[in-house]
Structures are given as C-alpha cells and as structure tokens.
C-alpha cells in the first residue's frame, strides 16, 4: 500500500508539471490560473444566463446535467486519440516494470494519470455549472458533498470507455509495420464512425423525447449517471448514492483487473514490431540534394504523420473545414432552415452573403488548427541539433510555420475553388479569399510558434504530454478561440457598415497587417526566445 501511495504521489506530481514553468517562462506562472479563471468565468456567465430562464420553470438542474453530458462526450472523444498515446510505449515503462510492484499497479498508474488530467479538464467546465446551481438554488450541504463526489467520479466512465477503444486501436495498429501511421488512420476511422453514429442519432432522440415522462426521464435515458446525479441533488436517497458510486468504481476495477494482461501483451508487441518491423533489407541509398527549406519541411511532415496524437489534435480544425465546405456547397438548405425562425423571419441571408460565410469558415478553422504550438517542444533534446545547425533562428521558425502552410493551404484553396465554381464568386473576391486562406494559417502558425517558444516543454516523457498536456497547447488553443470570436465579431460589425465584398477586402487587409506584425515579433523576440532554449 505504501508503494502504491508513493507511486500515486509521483504520478500526481508528474501531472501537475503542466503548471510548472521553467526558466524564462516562470515569470508567467500565474497565467494558467488567470486563463483558467477566465474560461471558468465565461462558462459561469453562460450558465447564469441560461439559469435565469430555467429559474422561471424551476428546472435549474438541467444546466448541471447539460454540462455533465457535454464534458462526458468531450472526455470520451478526446480520450479516443489520447488514450493509446498515454497508455502505451511510455518512456518510463522499463523503470516501472523493473520495480517490485504488481502489473495491475503499473496499469492502474497509467490509467490514473489519464484520469487526473481529465479531472482537471472536466473541473474547468463542471465547476462553473455547479457553482451557478448553488447560487440560484441555495441547496443544502449535501449538494456540495454530492457534487464534490460527482466531480471525482464522473470522468471515470468516459475514461474507461476510451481506454478500451485506445487498447483496441493500439492492438490493431500493432499488427502493422508502420504502427504510428496506422494508429493515426485507425483513430480517424473510429472518430469517423462515431460522427456517423452521432449524426444518425436524431431519430433516437426524437423517440426518447416522445416517450419521456419528464426532463429527468430523458436525462436518465440519455446518460444514466447524469440522471442519477439529478436524483441525488433533488431527491436524495442513500441507495441512489450507493448505485452512483458503484456505477463508476466497478467499471474501473473491472478494467484494471481484466485488461492488465492484454495491456502488457499489446505494449510489448508494439515494441517488438518497432524493432523488427522497421528493419529494411534494401541497401540502395537514396542520396539527393534538396533545398534547406524543402528538407526542413519534409522532416517536420515526417514527424507529423508519425505522431498520431499530434496530427489528430492539430488537424481537427481542417476536418471541420472540409465538413463545413461540404455542407455549404451541398447542404445549404439545411443552414437556410436553421437561420429562419418559425415565423419565417430570416436571421441571416446565407445565399446573399456567401463570401462572408466562406471568410468565416476560413477564419474559424485556420485559427483553430495549430500545428506549430508543439513543434518546438516536440524537438525535445534534439533541439540541440537545430541549434548547432548553420541556420538563422528566424529561418528555422519560418520553416516550421511553412510546414503548417504546406498542410493547410492546399486543402483550404481546393475547398474555396469548389465553392467559387458552385456559387459563381467574382474573381476579385475569390482572390481575396485565397489570400485569406494563406494569411490566416500563417497567423495561426506564427501565434503557435511564438507561444511555444515562450512556453517550451523540451523534457516531456512522451508526445502526448507535449500535445495535450503542455502550457503551449493550452494557451495557443485559448488565443485561437479568442481571435476567432474577435474576428467573427469584427466581420459582423463590418457587415452592418459596408457590403459583403468590402467586408472581405477590409478583413484581408487587417489580417495581412496582423500577420506582418506577428512576423516582426517572431523575428525579434522569437529569435531571442529560440536562442534561450536549453535542454
């Protein structure tokens, strides 16, 4: 037991390393807490606005259940591509496996690490909703106790499910030679299947709504633990509490006991495949001269496709872009219906504002796609190789940004050209939108690399830690979201003043100025931050 407690302590300390900023970055040590408070405050404000409506019908608990459902889905979706990276082929495998501890303990520690991170993540969303409920309802002390317990228990079920999916993905990919690339494909397939299932659940929800006796009845049918939680805070019964605890704890125990052997067999299989599968009998040497920039981008792309968690996490915005462009081009009537009220009032004329709609799609998806925010951290100790090369730091920075452009810009331009043909957009506006499709990924890339240079994590144990658990990723996502909201607000404000074509022109000019200023910042400050990087 003492050993387990020591291991848990080490594990928790390790998880908290996201908040430990070293060297130059330590002067921003309060930034994560300020950002966390900002996010929680914005969720609280949203919850409070909804709560004022629900106060009238005395259904305040709906807010809490909405947040529980939302975080559960997010944890599960995120866990699918995070779990295999977090659980398998960890750098401390050899250390832990040589210690005199049970295999189930090692597996438990792996899952616990996953759990602790999700607990922090879930708390950011759930705490504001729980606090909002407390402010509006003034519940008894039991509410607080149940809520604290729920906060601790609720991440378990999505984690157990995504761990199982992660094990399946790792098992399937371990059978292939290029394990990492296959892991990326299989994860995309799993997420694709989930999206298809999700999009076909409309009729299921309709049936649920038709047959439900009350809102809580619907919640229980959609996600039983959430309904049980509502029962506990509205009509407390000891039996419900016991069921609630067991419902979460038992799957966790079953997971640890039943899958520990499977886990270790797959983990060792992955390593064997890595050694044997990668041996190439071909001795002919492919020696060719490439320009520095091209060689650098090739190296970065190789890293990207070989790191499933990196590609899945960073390119999510691009997937949304493809879906959005496809919907706009082939399912525009659906949007028209959504933007028309029951009285026939058109909230936004989508067909009359296609250039603005395309601009907004490019803005949102570019700013939410960030490949560069982990590029420096992913170098790890090999950053010394880069620093010893005879290349100026600003060139290295721009080669990394250009990798983002290589991935994003062609997809963006193809999507836009399809839309131009479909909606007969005039050449001048088309050209401006194409310029935006280059400038916006450039802005996103520069923000990512600037933030990563400020908050590098060169001593990470694995890629997942860099991609999902680093301050740089967290801040870049927050800045991207913030800029998206500001840009969308700006575009709509401009729309009130000038016509759609002029909106695109003004927005393009503003984005070009921002990109240039960011480049200047990267050249001066980014270079200095690069020179300060130490492993």
């Amino acid at each position, binding site marked *: 037991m003492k050993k387990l407690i020591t291991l848990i302590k080490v594990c928790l300390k390790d998880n908290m390393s996201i908040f430990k900023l070293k060297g130059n970055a330590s002067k921003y040590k309060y930034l994560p807490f300020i950002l966390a408070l900002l996010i929680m405050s914005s969720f609280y404000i949203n919850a409070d606005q909804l709560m004022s409506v629900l106060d009238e019908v005395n259904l305040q608990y709906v807010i809490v259940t909405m947040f529980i459902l939302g975080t559960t889905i997010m944890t599960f979706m995120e866990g699918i591509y995070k779990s295999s990276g977090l659980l398998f082929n960890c750098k401390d495998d050899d250390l832990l496996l040589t210690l005199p501890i049970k295999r189930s303990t090692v597996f438990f520690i792996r899952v616990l690490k996953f759990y602790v991170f999700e607990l922090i993540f879930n708390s950011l969303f759930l705490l504001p909703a729980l606090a909002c409920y407390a402010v509006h309802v003034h519940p008894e002390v039991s509410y607080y106790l149940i809520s604290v317990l729920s906060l601790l228990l609720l991440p378990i079920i999505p984690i157990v499910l995504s761990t199982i999916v992660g094990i399946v993905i790792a098992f399937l990919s371990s059978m292939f030679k290029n394990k*990492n690339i296959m892991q990326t494909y299989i994860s995309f397939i799993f997420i694709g299947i989930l999206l298809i299932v999700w999009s076909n659940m409309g009729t299921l929800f309709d049936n649920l709504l038709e047959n439900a006796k009350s809102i809580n009845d619907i919640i229980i049918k959609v996600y039983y633990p959430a309904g049980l939680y509502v029962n506990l805070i509205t009509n407390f019964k000891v039996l419900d509490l016991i069921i609630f605890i067991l419902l979460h704890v038992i799957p966790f125990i079953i997971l640890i006991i039943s899958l520990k052997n499977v886990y270790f067999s797959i983990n060792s299989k992955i390593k064997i495949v*890595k*050694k044997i599968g*990668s*041996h*190439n009998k*071909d*001795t*002919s*040497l*492919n*020696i*060719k*001269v*490439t*320009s*520095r920039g*091209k*060689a*650098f981008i*090739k*190296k970065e792309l*190789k*890293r990207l496709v*070989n*790191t499933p968690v990196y590609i899945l996490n960073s390119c999510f915005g691009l997937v949304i872009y493809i879906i959005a462009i496809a919907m706009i081009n082939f399912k525009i009537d659906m949007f028209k219906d959504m933007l028309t009220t029951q009285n026939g009032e058109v909230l936004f004329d989508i067909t009359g504002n296609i250039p603005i709609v395309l601009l907004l799609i490019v803005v949102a998806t570019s700013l939410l796609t960030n490949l560069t925010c982990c590029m420096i951290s992913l170098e*790890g*100790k*090999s950053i*010394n*190789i880069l*620093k*010893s*090369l*005879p*290349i*100026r730091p600003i060139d290295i920075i721009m080669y990394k940004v250009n990798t983002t452009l290589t991935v994003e810009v062609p997809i963006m331009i193809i999507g836009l050209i399809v839309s131009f043909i479909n909606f007969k957009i005039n050449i001048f506006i088309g050209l401006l939108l194409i310029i935006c499709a280059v400038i916006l990924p450039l802005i996103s890339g520069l923000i990512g690399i600037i933030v990563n240079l400020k908050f590098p994590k060169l001593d990470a144990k694995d890629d997942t830690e860099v991609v999902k658990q680093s301050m740089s990723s967290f801040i870049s996502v927050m800045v991207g979201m913030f800029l998206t909201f500001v840009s969308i607000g700006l575009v709509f404000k401009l729309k009130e003043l000038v016509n759609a074509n002029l909106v695109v022109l003004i927005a393009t000019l503003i984005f070009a100025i921002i990109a240039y200023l960011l480049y200047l910042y990267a050249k001066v400050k980014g270079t200095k931050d690069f*020179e*300060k990087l*130490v492993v």
Partner: protein
Amino acid sequence: MIEIKKVTKKYGNNIAVNNVSFKVGDGEIFAFIGHNGAGKTTLIKCITGIQEFDSGSILINGKSIKKNPVECKKEMAFVPDNPELYEQMKAIDYINFICDMYEVSESDRTERIIKYSKLFEMDDKLNDIIESYSHGMKQKIALICALVHEPKVLIMDEPFVGLDPKAVFDVKEIMKKLTKKGTTIFFSTHILEVAEKLCSRVGIIKKGELVSVGTMKEVKGDKSLESVFLELED
C-alpha cells in the same frame, strides 16, 4: 582554431563556468576532462552556440560565435553526449537532411556517406528507422553526420560512450587523420587513457574553473593523467 576568452556562464546564482580561457590550435586534439557536473557540457554548449553565455568571448577560426553564429556553425560539427536524433527518420534521410543544412554537394555527400558508413559498419543499415537503433548505432550516425560536411572544427561530448571497441578504434584513427588535414578537435571524456594517448593538449575543469591546461607533458609531468586528475579533484 578555438579561442575561449574569460567565459562565464551562470544558472541563476550558480556559476557553471567561471572565467575560463584557453586556446585550441589548428590540427590539435584537445581533451577536456572533469567530474560529472564540473561544467564540461555547459562549456561545450557555449562553444557550439547552443547555449548563450554571460560574459567573455568564444572565437571559432577568428569569428565570434555570439556575433556570427551562422558563419561559425558552418565550419563546425558537434557530436552530443547522448545522440538525440530524429528518431522517425531513416538514417539515410537524416544524414541527407544534415547535408542539405550544410549545403554539401551530391557528389561529396555520396562519397563521404559511403566511406563513413562502411567504416562504421552501418552501410547495410542506413535504410532503417533510427528509432530501431541501439545507442551505439545512433552514436555512429551522429559521427557520420559530423564528418560528412568536413568541418574545420570538430567538437564532441563524450564521443566514445556506447561505441564498440572497433568503432572506438576507428574514431581515434579518424581523429588522427583529421588533425593531419588541420582540423581542430575538442572533446570531453571520462576515459583518461584515451585522452592520454590521443591528445596533444588537455584541460581539467573543476566546479566550473579551469584548474589545469597545457600539453600533456606540462599537465601530467612524469605521473599518469589519472593520478594528476584525482589530485586536482581532491
């Protein structure tokens, strides 16, 4: 040539390298020895431009690493103590990448890659992913990359760690050949016998300060390098 003048590097209040000065001439092999944590790697990182230093100057063939880092790095190669290479790449792709960065012509790189990969018995393994290599094999790839662009200054941090005896012998022979061409070689090591037999000059660092520097004869006199080193460290 490497000229180190009054270099000081601090980590907060901790002085890692304190006012160190010495020169390593053309065609010279210089061994840099000291205990773990004495400041060897820190100074090496300063020389190679990987790490900034607080005061003093470092000149590579007369050019300042602070003022002209790119020019200095063009003439220099660095072999780190722990070869952290790009693991997902094939070794040949990685070597090609390094050649592209140093702008080595196709004919030169072809000739040198074949020469050094055969010498280190890696010629039939260059199409493998680096991730599948042992520590020693990675070290050999790091050495090939350092040699492939024919640097005028070669800096190595513990270059013999993890190498098999034949590779150690080959590296020593290469070092001797390179010095005949005028290459400056600076390396840190814990293997005092190698330093004693191979180097023309030696420097001993203790707690960030250079406690002894000179030709092998000046430093050790009639004693062994090991006994001098232990005496200085006590």
